[in-house]
């Protein structure tokens, strides 16, 4: 994440208050707050017009909500603010909410009246807390939406359209969507014939990331599974444009037909809207909960929004199976990127 805009301050008084603010935490002054509120209003306007209703969830949550099977990756769990509260004698740790999606899933699941077939559309604006080893932001104002009950590709198409509309309404130009698919990487790993622990290890290394690591994994996997070598290299090392790339991946990895069909639907939605998109199928980010399409939107060179499909999460926390997907962005970042007139 980038540094927040800080307003001019008096160096002498800054010295007086040194040590009175926790590392990675920042005040939001009046000017920045005005921009924040304008961006927030625009976010709520656009999402509410699309049928999304706002919710807010607790700041303090039990850690095990986030360790629930396949929820957050160990890499992200390493970065949560966790502590023992007054009930901590039970050994149950609490966290400052590191992500808004799981609490939203829990809220959806807690609504006894919600009928399974009916899509539910939720939005939120609230802070999340994650350690950053350096001086980066540790409190992020996350704005996002969750869409329950609409499967791929319809749900994906709706979210991509909404993301595009939101960013355009904020006045962000030069939008480019990077698309990936969690199922594609998993199908490729399964096709290597590695045992489940080996597949998890490879997935961890890809998530832990860096291009070198991804290349190394690609090389090792290709060596272990020569008949899949072309497909794996295509997937892990090469970024693609539109249709032709997907045709090539499908030819090399026939077991990945379903994820490829979902990616095709996403690509055609974006092409129809005249929005540029890239395919980087191995890009996942540190959320293990994704099961389908994942996407990242760049405005110019700035990444400003992340999203994806997580169809198995409701079940993982003990709820009913429900197709689900969502996206989230750092609202302060959006406010800083939005031209003053547009936001």
């Amino acid at each position, binding site marked *: 994440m980038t540094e927040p805009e800080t307003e001019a301050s008096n160096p002498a008084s800054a010295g007086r208050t040194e040590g009175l603010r926790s590392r990675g935490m920042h005040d939001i002054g009046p000017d920045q707050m005005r921009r924040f509120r304008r961006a927030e209003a625009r976010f709520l306007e656009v999402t509410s017009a699309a049928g999304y209703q706002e919710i807010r969830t607790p700041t303090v949550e039990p850690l095990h909500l986030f*360790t629930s099977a396949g929820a957050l990756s*160990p890499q992200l*769990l390493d970065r949560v603010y966790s502590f023992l509260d007054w009930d901590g004698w039970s050994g149950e740790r609490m966290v400052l909410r590191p992500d808004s999606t799981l609490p939203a899933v829990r809220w959806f699941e807690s609504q006894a009246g919600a009928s399974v077939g009916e899509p539910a559309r939720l939005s939120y604006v609230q802070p999340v807390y994650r*350690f950053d080893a350096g001086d980066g932001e540790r409190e992020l104002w996350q704005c996002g939406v969750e869409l329950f009950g609409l499967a791929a590709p319809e749900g994906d198409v709706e979210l991509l359209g909404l993301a595009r509309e939101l960013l355009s309404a904020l006045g962000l130009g030069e939008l480019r969507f990077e698309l990936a698919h969690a199922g594609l990487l998993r199908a490729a790993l399964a096709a290597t014939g590695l045992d489940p622990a080996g597949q*998890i*290890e490879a997935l961890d290394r890809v998530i832990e990331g860096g291009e070198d690591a991804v290349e190394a994994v690609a090389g090792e996997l290709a060596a272990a599974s020569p008949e899949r070598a072309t497909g794996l290299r295509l997937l892990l090392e090469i970024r693609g444009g539109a249709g032709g790339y997907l045709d090539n991946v499908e030819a090399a990895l026939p077991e990945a037909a379903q994820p490829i069909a979902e990616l095709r639907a996403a690509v055609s939605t974006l092409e129809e809207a005249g929005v540029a998109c890239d395919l980087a199928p191995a890009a996942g980010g540190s959320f293990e909960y994704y099961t389908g399409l994942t996407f990242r939107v760049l405005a110019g060179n700035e990444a400003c929004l992340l999203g994806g499909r997580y169809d198995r999460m409701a079940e993982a926390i003990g709820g009913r199976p429900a197709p689900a997907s969502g996206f989230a962005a750092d609202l302060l970042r959006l406010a800083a990127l939005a031209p003053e007139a547009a936001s």
Partner: protein
Amino acid sequence: MIRVALPRGDLRAPLAERLRAAGFAVEGYEGGSRAYRFPVEGRPGVVVRVFAEEDIPIQVALGQYDLGITSRAWIDELLARYPLDSLTPLRPLDLGGRRLVLAAPEGVTLDRLAATPGVRVTTTHPNLAARALNYLRVPDYRVIEVWGQPEAWPPEDADAAILSVPLDAAAAGAVLAREGLAVVAEVQRGSATLVANRDALASRDLAEALGPLLALPAGDRDASEARPLPRGNGRTGGLEGIASRTSDNDRGVFRLALPDGHAQRHTVEALASAGLRFEGYGDGATDRHPRSGIEGFEVKVIRPQDMPQAVALGCFDLALTGRDWLAAHRAAFPLSPVAELCDLRRSRYRLGAVVPEAVPAETIAEAIAWWRRDDPKRPIRVASEYVALADHYARERHLGRYQVLPISGASEGFVPDDAEILIEGTETGSTLRANRLRMIDVIMESTNCAIGSTERPPGARGELRDDLVERLRAGAAEV
């Protein structure tokens, strides 16, 4: 002055020998002196301070010491939770090779642990434990941090333990087999390691100490190389979630916890004056499971520090511990369902704030003003084994900006160099006087006591608890 932190305990004798051979002879350290600070022969710019192994990483990370030698597990325990850029491991040494393993009762697999809701894991290394369980994809765990003997908890009181065992697989297997445990996964391995404070390395000339310390024999790769984190097999669900522990199930057995270590002598006396005696407790050897001779009455020996939590978790109906440990537990967890049932009136001592005799103050407020006379923003360092009590004290006495330094024993050596205040116990004050310290503020007078759940156990267990408490109370009246 270059400040070097060295470990006491098992590493001390073999390390002292290697230090001398490397030209870094620390006279009293070799001899096992009870002092805390030592000069180094022929190296006037170096001072050595002895700490418990687990206290060394935080001291070096804070920059209070420039260099240190301690077990890799304690370094990793700090780094697992706090990815500090201030602590730099420099070199593994050829001694103290150990590994931390996740061990469970024989026959219990990782799949089964992963499928158990709220799986309970005891450990002295909670940060490494949580990290390993995340990487092993155990979805719903409770890490219980204990003061010692995590292996004593399974199978009755925990599902698994994460504990330190020898590197050698056969030796480790033998240690675990005695407890009825087997390795499920390796969590960490490493040997004694030389660490440095990064800022000190970057800006100060440490050669007078660093030269000989870098000449210490290096560890072999197998013992010292960082291992990849353990990985789960990614399978979740599909298995019955059957907890292997039994104590908090609906049981008919009455369970009593007795303390080991220093507390044992006073406990044996308290039991004797209540007309109670358990075979295998206080009669020479201490067994993990002393015998009551009564059907449906189990006795188990654990650390007194861990008893309030064990009672709160429902593992025991009655436990004999110190009121200090109960107060420390309640300071951390005010809602914990554990209560004092009876004061045993033995093991009497005062717990309070200890400062150097030289501090010209009569009250803690005056002492704070004196420490801050030149720098009003100076943080006050409070060192204590009783972390939650120390934190509570610092808030209650309005210390302003403060740091609580968790330590494990040998606390007299901490002030004035490494902390301003100790939260510490004293029976007669003689140890404090010998170290030119005094208690400026009394927090509590502690004695030993019987504790139990705030809710009386049902049926015969409740009646037995009432009876034992009544006998202990009568015995204590004679003190």
